[in-house]
Structures are given as C-alpha cells and as structure tokens.
C-alpha cells in the first residue's frame, strides 16, 4: 500500500454506536492516518434503521454498506461483507465502533506492515487504557493472536483463507484468524506505538447479567478447540468447561455445540502445529506478560 492510495477502514456498529462514530471516532481518523481514507461501515442489525451519516470530503469518504441478511448478523459475516464491498488491494484496517484512534496510530500499523520482511497477516494496535495482557516478543513483536478491536489485515491473506469464520457469530473470530495466519506461513505482530482508546466492557461486567462475551465464548471455545486440535482439543475444552464457574452456562454451551456445531466444523487444520497456536486455559490462548 502506498501512502497515496486510500486506506480502507472497516467498522461494524450497532445502534448505540452511531453517535460515537459520527461525533468522535470518524472525526479522529484524519489525525490517525496521513493518506486519504475510505471508511466502510455496517450496522450488524438489519432490523435497525440507525445508519451512519457523515459528510465525505476530499480526504475521507464514508460509506454505509447494507447488512448482508435481514437479521442481526454476526461479526465475521459483517466483516466479510465489508471486505467484499471495499475490495482492498493490499491491506485494510478493522476498528471497533467504541474506540478513538490516536494520532498517527493507523500510520504506525501501516509502517510496521510495510517494513516487515516476512509475510505479515495481521498487525494489531495497542489498546488504552486497559491494555490486553497477552504475551508478545519484544524484539520481533510477534504475538500469538491479534484482537479484532483494532488491527491491520493483509488482503491477500484474508482472501486466501476465505475471510473470518462465520461459524462463531460473535467473539473468537480474531483468534481463529490469527491461528490460520500462523498455520499458513504468515506472521501476527503487535505494534505498541499504535494506540487506540478502547473502553472495553470487561471492567464493567455485572454479576447479575451474562455478557455476550461470556455467553458466546464458552460455546466458541469448543468450536475453536475442535477446529484446530480435533478430538483431543474438544476433550481439552470440555475439561476446562467442567471447571467453569457458571456450570449452567457451560452446560448450555456444550449442548449447543453438540446439537448445532460439532458436525459443521472443518478439520483442515487438525494435525498442523505452531508454537503460537495453543490453548492454555478456558478461553485463554496466550501466556500473560
């Protein structure tokens, strides 16, 4: 990607994010990237009438892409549809709708991507103020997986693996995509000088509510374990789930997995190994820094 070529930024949002996008995130983008910008947004919920309305200018074009189906669509399904609409040549950025990109943050991702001499699939930015504590190599900047909250993705790689796996619906598509990168000979990097303000919900979880992240992660944990590690992975995941704090939720996840997902999971990666593709705990795929 040359700096003259527009940078494509993909963002999947919900109704509650519209004002933040229009008044905070989009106005912050010109300081984050020096090249022209093309933003492709999509409301995950086709049933909602809330859409992004933002005046494009010479430096930044904003397009709101229709949801691919008349329902609430999953994260991967929306991003794959955005990819088809945006048709990026070399790379694209994905960003969560509840973030504020910091000055030069996207330029830093692009610079890291272009500077690398080995094939890079994903370059992940740094989240602030609650940084993800997962490991990364301080010299090579390699990390086992990249969060989908803010990262650059190589377009050729994305096309080659068929985009994100829509089986998950919500959560864990980013770990899956990172593992596919490692197993296909690509690298996943963490760029600490590229920062985004991301007010993650994890610090606000309440005991009396089951957050989507927990709801889906239990089930998706079984899916990803089977997809990359086969029967042994499935058994490992089941063992971890038996130790989960909320057994009612764990049992539901197991039931859903067995009834609706187990037989649909591809086995193309079973038997392939890489040091970065690992399960170290319940929904934990990395060592802590």
């Amino acid at each position, binding site marked *: 990607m040359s700096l003259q070529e527009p940078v494509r930024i993909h963002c999947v949002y919900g109704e509650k994010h519209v004002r933040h996008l229009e008044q905070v995130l989009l106005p912050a983008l010109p300081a984050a990237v020096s090249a022209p910008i093309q933003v492709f947004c999509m409301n995950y919920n086709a049933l909602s009438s809330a859409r992004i309305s933002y005046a494009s200018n010479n430096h930044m074009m904003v397009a709101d892409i229709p949801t691919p189906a008349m329902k609430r669509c999953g994260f991967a399904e929306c991003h794959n549809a955005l990819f088809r609409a945006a048709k990026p040549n070399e790379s694209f950025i994905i960003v969560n709708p509840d973030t504020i990109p910091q000055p030069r943050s996207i330029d830093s991702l692009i610079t890291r991507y272009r500077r690398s001499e080995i094939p890079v699939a994903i370059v992940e930015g740094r989240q602030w103020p609650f940084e993800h504590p997962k490991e990364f190599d301080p010299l090579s900047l390699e990390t086992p997986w990249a969060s989908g909250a803010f990262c650059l993705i190589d377009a050729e790689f994305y096309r080659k693996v068929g985009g994100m796996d829509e089986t998950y619906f919500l959560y864990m598509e980013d770990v899956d995509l990172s593992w596919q990168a490692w197993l296909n000979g690509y690298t996943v990097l963490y760029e600490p000088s590229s920062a985004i303000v991301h007010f993650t919900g994890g610090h606000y979880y309440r005991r009396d509510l089951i957050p989507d992240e927990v709801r889906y992660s239990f089930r998706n944990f079984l899916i990803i374990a089977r997809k990359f590690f086969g029967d042994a992975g499935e058994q490992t995941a089941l063992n971890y789930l038996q130790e989960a704090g909320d057994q*009612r939720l764990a049992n539901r996840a197991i039931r859903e997995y067995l009834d609706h997902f187990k037989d649909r999971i591809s086995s193309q990666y079973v038997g392939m190994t890489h040091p970065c593709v690992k399960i170290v705990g319940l929904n934990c795929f990395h060592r802590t820094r």
Partner: protein
Amino acid sequence: MLHVVARSAAAVTEWTRRHPTASASARFHIDRPSYFDVLNEIIRDTTADYALVVHDDVFLSERILEDVAELISELDSDWPAWGVCGNAGVLSFGLGCKNTKILRYLRDPHGGPNYQGIVVPAQSIDGNVMLLNTRALRDRGIGLPAFEGFQFYDLVLCIEALYHDLAVLIAPRLTSVHLSGGSQEQFDKAAQSFRLHRYLLQRLANAELATLNGLVKLSAELPTSEQEFQHRDTIDIELHALQVAARKRQKRQVAIVIRTQFRDQALLRRALETAQAFAVAAGDVTEFKPFVVTDRPADCPDFVHRHASVIAVDTEPGIDSRFKLIQCASGIDADFLWFVDDDDWLFPNEAERLGFIVNIVPPNALLFIDTQWFHERIGSGGPMITGNYSIIPGRYFFARDWAMSLSGDNYIPFCGMIVPTQLVRTLDPRLFERVVYYEDFTIQLSGLISPGTVQIVVEKLFSGISVRETGNSITVQDRMRWDKSYVEMIACLCSDPRNPNLFSLWPLPAINPVSPAAQPAAWRPSMEAVSRPERSLLLAYRLTLGLIIIAGNPRRWIGRAKRGLLIARNDGMLSVLKWITIFWRGK
C-alpha cells in the same frame, strides 16, 4: 380508591378499628386466594385513575387520604411516567452514609425508616402499601400472570410496570407501620417456583434479582445464544428502572469543567476526547457538556474549540488560580458541575446510567462516583502513547467511602464527585481567596454541611486519574502549600454554623475515661495481656503481611515507600519495621 386485602372478616374489623376515618372509603377484598387476581381486578375492572392497595396489618397515618391526594398531584407533575409507588424498595444506586440500596419509609419488625424526604425511583417495592396509577397501567394493557398466593405479587407488578415503561417509585408520604415482617420461609418456597422463573426469564435479562427478601437466582433453562441474540426483548431491571423514571422529565445539564493552562496538549486532548465520548454516550435525558476554563486563553490550541466551549478568566498575575477558575465555572448555566483535571480522562461505559441518575435525583444531590489512579510513564516528544509508554492501574477510590472524608482525610478525588452548581455559587467567598489546594475537599465538605444535601453513590468507574513522576501537584515533595490550604479550609469550615453535627459522624479521638498517666494498665490492657513471644509472633505476622502487600503491587506503594525512607532517616530502622506492619491497614 382505597383497597384493603384482608385475610378474614376479623381482620377487616381490626383494620376498621385502627383506621376509623379511612375505612369509610375502603373496599375490602376478603379471604382471596391470590393477590395477583386482586391486583388484576383493581387494574382492569375499576374505573378509578388511581388505587391505594394495602395489607390488613398496616397502620396508616390519620391523614393518609389527604397525603395520597397530594402525592398523586406531585407524582403526576414530577414523574410523568410513573406506574407504581410504595414506601420501601430496592434502588439502582446507593443512598446516604451507609450507601443503602434498600430504602425504607416504614416501621416493621426489620426496623424503622432509613432516610427522609425524597421520592426516588426503584426496581421494586414492598407490597404493604402500593399506590397504583391504574389508568396508566390499564392504558398499557398490563396484567399480572395467573399465579396463586401472596408472594412475589409486588415484585411481578413492578416488573410488569417497568417492562411496559412505567416507573416504580418510593415516596415518604406512603409511610406505614407494618405489623408483619413477612415470612422468609414462604418467600423462599415461592422463589423456587418453576413458573415464576420462566416468567422472570421472559421479562428480565438479569441472571439474578435483588429483592427485599434477598437475591433470587434465576434457574430456568436458558434460551440458546442465537435465540437470545435475535429476539432480545428482555429488560435489565437495574438500568431500566432508572431509564423509565427519567422518561418525559425535564432534561438536566452537567458541565464537565476542565481547568487548564495548556501545559501538556496531548493529555488535554485525551481529556477532551474522552469527555466528548462520554457526552455522546450519556444519551438525551441529561446533557453533559465539556467546558475548558483557563487563565491563559492566548495559549489555547485550535483543537480545544472542536471539543469544548472555552471560558477565559482574568486573574492577577503570579497567583495560583485553581480555585479562582472554579469560582468562574460556577457561572456556567448548568444544574451540576463535574470538575475533571486536564490530565484525567473519563470512561464512557456507564455514561448512560449516570445520565439517568443525574436526571432523577433531587437538585441538591451530591453524587459520588468511582475513580482510579493510573501510574503512567510517558516518553517525551511525538504522540503521547509511544513504544516506551506504560500504564499501570493504581489505587481505586470507591465512591461508597465518601463518609470517610469526615475523618479529615479526603477519600474522594475531585473528578469523583458531581456537585450542584448552586453549591459552588453559594460557597463562602473567603474560601476562593484563601484556599488554593484542597479545593476539591473544600467543595465536598461544604456540600456535606449544607442542609438538605442528598448523597448519591454510583459504584461504577467513571474517571481515570493520571499519576506521573513529575507534573502532578499530588506528588510534589514540599507539602507547605497543601498544609497552608488545609488550615485555611478548616478555618472557614469550622466557623460555619450550618449543620454543626456533621463532622461528629466519624469517630475521631475522644477523651479517655481514665488518664493514661494515672493508670497505664487500664490504658493499654490488651497489650499487657500478651506475652513477649506472642508479641513477637504478632509482629512477624504483620511484617510478613505488609511485605506481601508491597510485593504484590510495588508500583502502587511508591508514594508510601518515599514516606518509609523518610521515616528511616528520621526515626531509624525499627520505625520502618513498625511502618511495614501497619501496611495491611492502609489503602
């Protein structure tokens, strides 16, 4: 309009004997097997606009009918979306010194009233006295499920009202003496009903429900993730109770006031961006609007105007203007002021909740919110966050600790409270002249000694406070200016005759009943009873505990470590050991 649900004819006689005036207007529902049915009849089959439904074992004020008439008028005016009102219930925020979430305007076997004077929204109410807005309930087609018995009818009525966007309130005018505390055993049995849980799961997103009788954990089978995601029509009762209560009420305004001299523009930009994100996330019932107040308007960079209104203040050269800027900020046309330092930031995650709460609390409310220190190491030059940047969460300031500020130490950072603008406008003018530091503590204490102040506690993290090696007034070594401000602050506050009882709420040193010099044994009886080996053991235990706490998060204790070094220099190593042994007591 007055309905008494009575278990027998004898109970009717007894109720009539207790309420000779009100009984003439009462309709008695005698020996009915289901309270749910009674409520359905009252809502559906009567033509009255309002109904007061009470138990047969309550004592009501002699003036109850007049009080209720006045209350209805007040509710219709101030709470346009009200549906149900009671005299005790569960709140969605904390109230007062004890941070209570159960508000009681009644006397029953569990105790007496625990607050005074204000109408507040609730998640649910106790059924001993319930005022129903029957017209509004009827208009929305509200009906209770066909359950039997006398448990959960009040909770289910509240859930139905909230689900249909009608507010649940608690009002002091409905106070009563309730002769029964209810049966916990019967409640617990009813709480196991499968049908009840199925009903609750259809209505609520919550996995457990706070009630006056304790937590109820929902245990019916969960719908699948996909079903749940595609058909979301449940409510989060905690948040929805606030949201519904704020409906159709007049919008309120909170000015987010950032005082600055533009010394660090990257940090200021962060403060402004997050303040704007907060304002956007807060929704429409309360408008949060960022303001920058400065005595250096000529240094104001362009980006500031994109995020905030700028107020320029003329001050005398050479003075520390921080309290003067506050005085000028009190001229902003807003209901409340939220002072945020120019290196702080705001977390918008729960902005909507705060917007609802600001809208529904009394205008003289002093709101306390959670804040946290973050230890930052910032590289020089370029964007603020570079490869060398680091951030480590530090001390957490709990809003619920506000009453501890009455001890003389401040437990609430400036950005941890939202104050009525009127409070700042009416501060003793001498304070603006004489106090420089501790301006936050001064405002907090002035608010607390103001009669009528209502303390509201919102236990969510709303602000981050940057702590750096340099550039923070809280980390300056020379405390002379701090101490000078403190004495000026208490010189003014101690001479203030309003609410003179307030500072005595917190236990502080008192006169010993016996002089220590005369009777040392009585003075330190506990240590006298401990042998030397036991003392050594105790000392070793506390020393180990202190070291573990320090080792667990050393950065957090950097500030205290400096104090430890000072102690070592002045008082020797033994004093340092003693200091470590009391670490476990500290925050």
